Every structure is written in structure tokens, then in C-alpha cells.
């Protein structure tokens, strides 16, 4: 559990054919993702937090403000939340501008500057005087995000805001969400069943199944914990945040400083000091004992094996620590059991990891 957790809650309620029993303890800033299969209770958790659903037993405290406890239940309309639903759910009888301002009536701090800033952030200038029905799905969802933000929330709840959109629309909204995350200091609870989305956006992850929490920790810790389903899944990966050390304009390669080492990534020109999130799939990482091998692979980085787990009859998943002290970034590698035995690898062994491919998933500015 996070020692500096600012949002705590406990909800017990009955959901159709199973019981939801969730004890939340999440950071008071950044994006926390709730991840789990459809029907596991993710949306109900958001509804409990927002006050749209009253849990039979529950309490909820955010930054020392009690929203629910044994004898008290604050109704939804008195909670400082922003809620972005799966469908944009704009008011059809109001213009985009009136939709945006609907929740702003008690946002005393709102001035033209803040309005313009959010309209600009979400790229909505062009649509202000139109009615929602003339907007595309992605545009509507952007308006609903802006509308939630302009009500001056202390907590933003997003319920699969991208799931109703097709791939292109998703790619259109994703940058806005990233800018949101970078520009506004606002805790966000983000529900999704799309791991790609989460690995791109989330800082903190809560794994949920059948109304229970399986794990709750920083994203990379959950990704690299072989006892949890993410690390052993077919497309296991880790997300690592790094900043650009230098950019080789001649070859178009950026050198990222991450905890415990450097990672080279071919990319479009970038500025020194820019922060980005790198995503490395376990299947793109291999291990070797020597540093001297000649190879076309860009990244050959010293690391230490810290744990391993048999994945199936032929494969195992290996957790590595970049560099030589144990504070380095964690990397996953998927190797065959035969090669593991052939190289005589053991936990604690220093090795070199070769990374075939790295993707840049998020601009952290």
C-alpha cells in the first residue's frame, strides 16, 4: 500500500449474482487505473465513489474530506467529482458551450481564462455554438471531458471513456488525455479493460476480479510481479518513464536515461530533457552473459536477475533489475527454459539484456 495514499474507501454491495467488497487505498494524484474483465465491478466502484450508487456498507474519504461513512452519505450532486461516462451523454438540448458550462454554475473560480484553457486543451473552439448531434463521437467525448473538468472537480472519474470509439477516434482522444494528465494536477480514476490504454496512461493500477481487489500498486510493480496475471500474460510488458539524455540527429536515435541505465530508441527528433514513457514487451527482451557480442541490436544493458517463474512447459518469465543496485527499473524477459538451463542462469546472476524493440507510448512533457 502507498504510504502517501490520499484516497481511501471501502464499499460492500451486492451486484446481481456476486458481492462487491472493495477496499481502495490509492494516491491523491496521478492516474489510477481500475482494470479487470467486463462485469467485475469496475463501473460500480466509480458509481460508489461518485455517490450515484449507495453501497450497503461503505466509507469514502478523499484528502481528509469524508464523503461517506457509517452515518453519513453525501449525495452525488454535493460531491466535487467530474464523471466521464462511457458514452458522451451530452445534453442534446444545449449547445456545446452550454454543455461545457452546465456544471460551472458553482465553480466560483471559473473565469474566461480557465474556460479558454480547457477549450484549448481539448480543441473545442470550433464547436462551441453547435449542438451535440452535429459532432462526431470523439468530439462529443471531448466535450464531456471538458464539461466534467469545468465543474472544478477534486477527483475525475472516467468510465472507459474511449471504449465506445473506434481505433482512429481513440488515437484522436489519447493525446488530449495525456495533456490533461500533464497539465492539471487532478487525481483521476480511470476504468478500462484495455491494457494498452492503461499502460499508456496509468501511474497506479488496481486489478479487480469478481468484485475483489487482486492487487493495488504502482503500474510497473504490478507489471513486473510474476505472481500476478499481467506478467505471465501473452503480451506482458513493462512501462518505464525516462528522460532524453541526448538525441543523435544523424541516425535519429534518442538516448533515454531511466532508473539503472540508458535505453536507445529510434524516433523523430526530440529535445533533451523531454520525459516519455517507454513500453518494452517481455517477448522483445533476450539475455546474454557477455557484453562483447556483435549484434544489430541497439540496446545491450547490464542487469541482474531478481526472480523467475515458469510460464508453461517451455517458457519462463524472468524479472530483471537494470544496473547493479536494486533501485533500477524492472524489465521482463520471456526466455525458453532450455536456454535458461543452457546458460546456467540463476536468480542473482548479472547478465546483459538485449532489447529488440521499444515503443514510446506517452509524452510526459
Amino acid at each position, binding site marked *: 500500500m502507498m504510504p502517501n495514499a490520499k484516497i481511501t474507501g471501502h464499499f460492500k454491495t451486492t451486484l446481481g449474482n456476486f458481492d462487491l467488497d472493495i477496499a481502495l487505498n490509492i494516491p491523491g494524484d496521478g492516474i489510477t487505473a481500475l482494470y479487470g474483465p467486463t462485469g467485475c465491478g469496475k463501473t460500480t466502484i466509480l458509481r460508489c465513489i*461518485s*455517490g*450515484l450508487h449507495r453501497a450497503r456498507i461503505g466509507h469514502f474519504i478523499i484528502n481528509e474530506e469524508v464523503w461517506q461513512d457509517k452515518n453519513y452519505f453525501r*449525495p*452525488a*450532486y*454535493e460531491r*466535487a*467529482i*467530474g*464523471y466521464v*461516462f462511457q*458514452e458522451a*451523454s451530452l*445534453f*442534446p*438540448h444545449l449547445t456545446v458551450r452550454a454543455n461545457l458550462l*452546465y*456544471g460551472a*454554475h*458553482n465553480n466560483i473560480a471559473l473565469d474566461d481564462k480557465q474556460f479558454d484553457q480547457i477549450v484549448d486543451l481539448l480543441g473545442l473552439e470550433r464547436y462551441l455554438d453547435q*449542438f451535440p*448531434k452535429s459532432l462526431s463521437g470523439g468530439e462529443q467525448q471531448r466535450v464531456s471531458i471538458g*464539461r*466534467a473538468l469545468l*465543474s472544478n472537480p477534486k477527483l475525475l472519474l472516467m468510465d472507459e471513456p474511449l471504449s465506445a470509439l473506434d481505433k482512429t477516434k481513440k488515437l484522436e482522444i489519447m493525446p488530449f488525455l495525456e495533456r490533461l494528465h500533464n497539465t492539471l494536477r487532478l487525481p483521476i480514476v480511470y476504468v478500462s479493460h484495455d491494457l494498452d490504454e492503461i499502460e499508456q496512461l496509468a501511474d497506479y493500477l488496481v486489478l479487480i476480479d469478481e468484485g475483489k481487489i487482486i492487487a493495488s500498486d504502482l503500474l510497473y510493480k504490478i507489471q513486473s510481479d510474476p505472481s500476478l496475471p499481467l506478467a505471465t500474460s501473452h503480451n506482458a510488458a513493462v512501462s518505464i518513464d525516462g528522460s532524453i539524455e541526448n538525441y543523435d540527429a544523424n541516425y535519429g536515435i534518442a538516448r533515454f536515461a531511466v532508473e539503472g541505465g540508458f535505453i536507445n530508441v529510434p524516433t523523430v527528433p526530440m529535445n533533451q530533457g523531454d520525459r516519455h514513457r517507454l513500453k518494452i514487451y517481455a517477448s522483445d527482451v533476450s539475455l546474454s552473459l557477455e557484453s562483447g557480442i556483435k549484434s544489430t541490436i541497439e540496446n545491450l544493458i547490464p542487469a541482474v536477475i531478481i526472480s523467475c517463474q515458469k510460464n508453461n512447459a517451455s517458457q519462463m518469465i524472468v524479472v530483471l533489475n537494470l544496473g547493479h543496485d536494486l533501485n533500477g527499473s524492472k524489465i521482463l524477459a520471456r526466455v525458453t527454459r532450455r536456454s535458461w538451463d543452457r546458460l546456467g542462469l540463476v536468480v542473482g546472476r548479472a547478465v546483459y539484456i538485449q532489447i529488440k524493440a521499444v515503443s514510446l507510448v506517452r509524452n510526459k512533457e
Partner: protein
Amino acid sequence: MDTLISENILSPIFLTLALAILTTLILLVVGTPLAWWLARSRADWKEVVAALVTMPLVIPPTVLGFYLLILLGPDGPGGALASLWGLKTLAFTFPGLLFGSVLYSMPFVVQPIRIAFEAIGERPFEVAATLRASPWRAFWTVAVPLARPGFLTGAVLGFAHTLGEFGVVLMIGGNIPGKTKVLSVAIFDYVEMGDWRSAHILSACMIIFSFCVVLFMNSFDKYFRRKI
């Protein structure tokens, strides 16, 4: 008799218009919260109330009129109420007529508004709540504008239905010129007396007027719908 439209032909027109307008206004005020409750309540017995509201649709107007006569008459609660300001009965008075019309036209106003409220669904109200709108504010800024077509339909139907009311009026209002003699009763009287010309004038006026009301309401609604 030189003038085409005499004094006593105009009086039922004004009386009917007053009755229909007042009935519609009262029904909008009373019927809206009732329709809201019928649309949103989870109470088991709300269907009992809904059935009561719908009853005037299925029972013969004379039956409704007969019971209203008892209710409003000197021995009923209406008579007791009337005694407060020195009258003996509410039957054969304009307020009595108004009360009867409100009951009689209630389903025509409540039902369309209820259906319109139900069609909005839960989501817009949840959105409003998450945007810090109190239930009161959500009602005025979300429910009422989104249910506008239901209000228009209800108002037109309630108005038109009161215009054409006959059985109930005859039972509880009688035929007092200037006080309770409404259009439909006046037309009936003219035909009885063989004054077909006056009956024609009133009937034609009623048809033209009704047509104008419906046309206006429809165009009004279309104008708004185009905007959205």
C-alpha cells in the same frame, strides 16, 4: 337581427375558451408533478394511481358527471366547501365546471408528459448530479426541456378535449347562459331550437380554431426540434 354574431352567441365562445385555457393551465401545474412521480417513483402502488388518472378515458362522461354532481352538490364535500363563501353548491357554477374539466381531461395531459419523462431515462439525471445540479435544478434544466414535446402534446390534447366536452358539462354545469353554457351545449341547444344558422357559425368556428391551435403547436415544436 342584423348582426351576424350576436351577444348571446359570443358568450359561450368566451366561456369555453376561458374554461379550456384554465383547465389546461391547472393541469400543467398539477399534472406535471403527478406525471413526474408516475414516471420516476418505484412505489408499488403507483400503478393504482395511474389507473385512477386514466379512468376518465374509459368511463362514460355521464357516469363521471353523475358522481361529480353528487360530489359537488349541497350534500357533498363540494357543497361544504361552497358554504365557506356562502354558496350552497359547486354544481352549476363555473368553478364546479372547471373542477370537472380538470378531472375529465387529466389523462390527456398527464399521460403524454409521463411518457416523455420516462423516455429521458436515468443517464441525463446522473450526468446532471455529477455536475453538481440539485434534483430541483436538474428537473428544470434537464427534465422539462427534454420532455418539451410531451408538454406540447399534453397541452394541445387537454385544451382540445376540454373544448369538446359535453356529457360532463351537461351533468354538472347545466345550461346557464353566461355562467355554464359552453360551446358544445350551445350548439346542441341551437339545433334543438331549429336555429341551424347559429349552430353552423359556432361549429365552423370551433373547427377552424381547433385546426389553428394544432397547427400552431406542431410548427412551434418543429421549430425547436430543428434547432437541436
